[in-house]
């Protein structure tokens, strides 16, 4: 209505608004210009000549373009409404108190805080039981720690301290913050932002740490690809995670990772960022890292702890991927609480033998960042490289898989290198052979050899503490981590819950239905036993149980015996379908350097086992010799990939 009259009564039509709206808007007071200072100078000729520029009244506009004043007024009001942005007021909320608007650094409020649909879907997966969430917060297990916050804090408090050590290169916390800020700004410039999934396939090099922290600074989510992953895994994991970018090597040991990702033409994958030689179509990492505008100068919003920060894959690299989302509450809380439990401090040098693509590697990195300690990088594992790096970097804490340590022991590397700075070794990733733990303890007498049990879903769920002694730490995975609870189910399965537990698999309802008990405990799939002091020993995997004609047994003890056979480097026993008995045991073995030894046969191995008191019903009934086992990044045998022989 205008002056009590509606649109029809004053003769305004949609066509008129469309035809004259822009013109009227421009001629009105909404757009004002002035040339010189004619009013102050009372230069009436100039005032009249420039009246149209200063913004005309509705009546004056009407006279000029041939509409009534009321029509102009109505059309102008409609145009003002159409043009009005209700959210511009919010810009004021960030100004003042010494802070001024900077156009060159400005990103529209709504753009800075925009989430893509995929990002919102991932956020939607971060659903926790409200009572548990409240409990974790009240206990202080969940706080607002974020990687960005930790990095900024250490850069401010102890900026000169070493954050990352790679060979001769030492990156201080202050420098790390600077480089992270720049890369985050560069990633932002590519259109990447909060909630976006960014994949990383890199070895444990400084660019990994910088990339991870830059992704975190953006409030984006990192998903990891293992170095052995190729096109098939790329397609599955990048597709399932809806990754919008991939940071990888141009040449990953002969595999053209960046080019392979580009060739897939995945619809969601907008950017491939390559380290190394230029790749057509890929963005050079160096360009982004060298950007002149960092995230802080862009005033990008800081992430908060409830934001998802990681999306890790546990299995199913080709079908039905199990994607594990974590936010800073679950992920960083576990690391923060672990620092105290493992008795680590800011002067420690923490090293991970597993890759950062694996959760155990990230656990080491998170503990460094919680402490402001140094993280010693091992780009790729070989036993000599590991031992040499421990010596050169004066590592005080080593996180490793049993296989890493066993290899070093086997080669006598702890005799050849000074590893005396080590005060704790945390073993995880696969079952820890008791004898190996004892041998390591004997070789490193001033070092605590401890076990940690964890999964991508649970992180560090159980672990031994310094001071437990080798009797406990060689035979058990210790007690629940702070914030964690563990119990053994009716079927002997280890079940856990706690502040470190993931909320559920992303986009995999079938897996979720199987993963949790009705009362919310996570079914680990591991078999465990608990001693009177509360220590849990992992005894096997439920799915490894062999059911031979109704007689069920865990092959773990047989594998341990076979692994101690002088002619066998690694062994695995898996159930093999059988028409009569249902299942029989099939033994896979990798011979030692004497691999061609004719003595390795099913008969000789069975005799060996019988000699060690193994019941006949548990003897393997097939033997397959392999050159190497399929291994996880923590060098755990992937039994599902062992090639079962054809059976009659």
């Amino acid at each position: 209505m205008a002056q009590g009259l509606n649109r029809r009564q004053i003769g305004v039509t949609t066509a008129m608004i469309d035809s004259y709206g822009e013109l009227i808007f421009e001629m009105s007071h909404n757009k004002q210009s002035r040339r010189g200072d004619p009013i102050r100078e009372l230069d009436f000729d100039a005032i009249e000549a420039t009246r149209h520029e200063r913004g005309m009244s509705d009546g004056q506009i009407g006279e000029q373009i041939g509409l009534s004043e009321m029509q102009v007024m109505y059309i102008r009001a409609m145009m003002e409404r159409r043009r009005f942005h209700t959210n511009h007021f919010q810009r004021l909320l960030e100004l003042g108190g010494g802070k001024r608007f900077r156009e060159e650094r400005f990103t529209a409020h709504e753009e800075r805080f925009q989430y893509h649909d995929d990002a919102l879907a991932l956020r939607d997966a971060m659903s926790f039981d409200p009572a548990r969430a409240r409990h974790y917060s009240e206990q202080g297990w969940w706080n607002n720690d974020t990687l960005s916050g930790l990095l900024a804090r250490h850069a401010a408090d102890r900026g000169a301290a070493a954050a990352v050590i790679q060979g001769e290169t030492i990156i201080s916390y202050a420098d790390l913050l600077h480089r992270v800020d720049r890369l985050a700004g560069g990633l932002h410039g590519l259109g990447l932002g909060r909630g976006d999934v960014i994949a990383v396939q890199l070895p444990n090099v400084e660019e990994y740490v910088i990339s991870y922290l830059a992704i975190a600074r953006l409030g984006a989510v990192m998903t990891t690809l293992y170095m052995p992953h190729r096109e098939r895994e790329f397609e599955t994991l990048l597709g399932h995670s809806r990754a919008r970018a991939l940071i990888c090597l141009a040449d990953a040991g002969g595999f053209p990772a960046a080019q392979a990702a580009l060739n897939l033409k995945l619809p969601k994958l907008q950017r491939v960022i390559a380290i190394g030689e230029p790749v057509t179509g890929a963005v050079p990492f160096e360009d982004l890292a060298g950007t002149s505008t960092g995230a802080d100068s862009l005033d990008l919003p800081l992430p908060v702890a409830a934001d998802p920060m990681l999306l890790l894959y546990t299995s199913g690299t080709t079908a039905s991927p199990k994607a594990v989302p974590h936010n800073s509450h679950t992920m960083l809380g576990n690391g923060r609480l672990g620092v105290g439990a493992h008795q680590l401090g800011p002067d420690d040098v923490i090293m991970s033998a597993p890759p950062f693509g694996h959760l155990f590697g990230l656990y080491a990195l998170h503990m460094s960042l919680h402490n402001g300690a140094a993280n010693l990088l091992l780009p790729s594992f070989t036993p000599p490289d590991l031992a040499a790096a421990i010596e050169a970097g004066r590592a005080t804490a080593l996180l490793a898989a049993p296989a890493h340590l066993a290899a070093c022991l086997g080669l006598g590397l702890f005799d050849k290198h000074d590893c005396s700075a080590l005060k704790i070794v945390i073993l995880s990733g696969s079952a820890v052979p008791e004898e190996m733990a004892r041998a390591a303890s004997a070789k490193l007498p001033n070092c605590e050899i401890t076990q940690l049990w964890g999964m991508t879903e649970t992180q560090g769920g159980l672990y031994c503490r310094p001071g437990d002694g080798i009797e406990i730490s060689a035979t058990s995975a210790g007690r629940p981590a702070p914030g964690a609870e563990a119990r053994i189910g009716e079927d002997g399965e280890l079940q856990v819950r706690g502040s470190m537990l993931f909320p559920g698999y992303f986009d995999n309802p079938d897996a979720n239905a199987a993963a949790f008990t009705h009362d919310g405990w996570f079914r680990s799939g591991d078999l465990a036993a608990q001693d009177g002091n509360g220590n849990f020993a992992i005894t096997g995997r439920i799915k490894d149980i062999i059911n031979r004609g109704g007689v069920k047994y865990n092959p773990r003890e047989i594998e341990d015996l076979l692994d101690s056979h002088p002619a066998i480097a690694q062994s695995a026993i898996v159930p093999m379908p059988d028409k009569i008995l249902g299942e029989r045991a099939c033994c896979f073995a990798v011979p030692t350097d004497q691999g061609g030894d004719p003595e390795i046969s099913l008969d000789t191995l069975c005799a060996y086992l019988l000699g060690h008191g193994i019941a006949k019903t548990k003897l393997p009934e097939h033997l397959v010799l392999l050159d190497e086992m399929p291994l996880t990044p923590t060098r755990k045998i992937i039994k599902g990939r062992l090639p079962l022989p054809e059976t009659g």
Partner: protein
Amino acid sequence: MGDDDVANATEFDAREAKKAILDYCLGKGALAAGVADLDALERIAPPGHRPSDIMPKVKSVISLGVGGQTQGAWAVPAKAMGYFGSTETRAYTISYGAAFFIESKYQTPAIYCPPDMDNEKGPRVPLQSLKLHAEVAGIGARSLAGDILLHPEFGYMYFASIFTELDLPPDRPMAQNPCPAPSCVSMYRQIGRTPCQKFCPVQCLSGKIDEAGKQAEMHYDMAACAEISQQYEAVPALLAEAMAAEDAQGREEALFDPDNKMLWYKMSVGSGGLLAQCFECMRVCPIATKAPLADPIRRSKAKAEA
């Protein structure tokens, strides 16, 4: 008031009356006051917005300005600063009193000029331009900051007007425009923009300075400025959003999300924040913030030194 105080129409001295009225305004707290040339106003203002449209027998328009901000105000966050000023009641109180003073002392009709919007023309069109009155009365000059008036001594002020049928001798507009300040000219020479233009949150200001360091062009996107400073316009917009929402959740968000709940709050209490000004251009203006008598601290120091 005794009989002696009532001026006899036959003994009316326009100059003395003008002085008495302006002294009244200054005595009540105005920093500056003057009389605008009515003929000029009638020629410059568009039809419907001329003084005679409000008061047909008007002979004089008196304009006064009060201090804009305290010195401390310039440092507060913008969201708090939005509550400073806008509807500056001190100026209106003085002008209201001045109208009473004129009628009482001179037995001549006077009105306090309504400072608000024209009921007929909608909320972006004022009844009168108080800015025009002040400029013609010589107590402010148009700046590059969207024609906000500035004074070389008092910086940034709020204005109010009184109309009267008393015929008072008019003042002249300022001989010089203090905007742009030398430092602004220097910045313009370097980057092509003055501080007010550079730091406007919606970039609604632009313009040019000539070789002599004077204003050559001023461009002001008032619509953009309104988007950041006039929240009342958001009220119908959010109601429209709620009506257009696809479902109950959308309607709930449109009506009750934190921003919109704040609008309801401001409406319910008549909060000045609903009409919040954005002071970012003035915050960086050396005249507004650093003129010799721009704030109470500077004024009291100057008074003490004098």
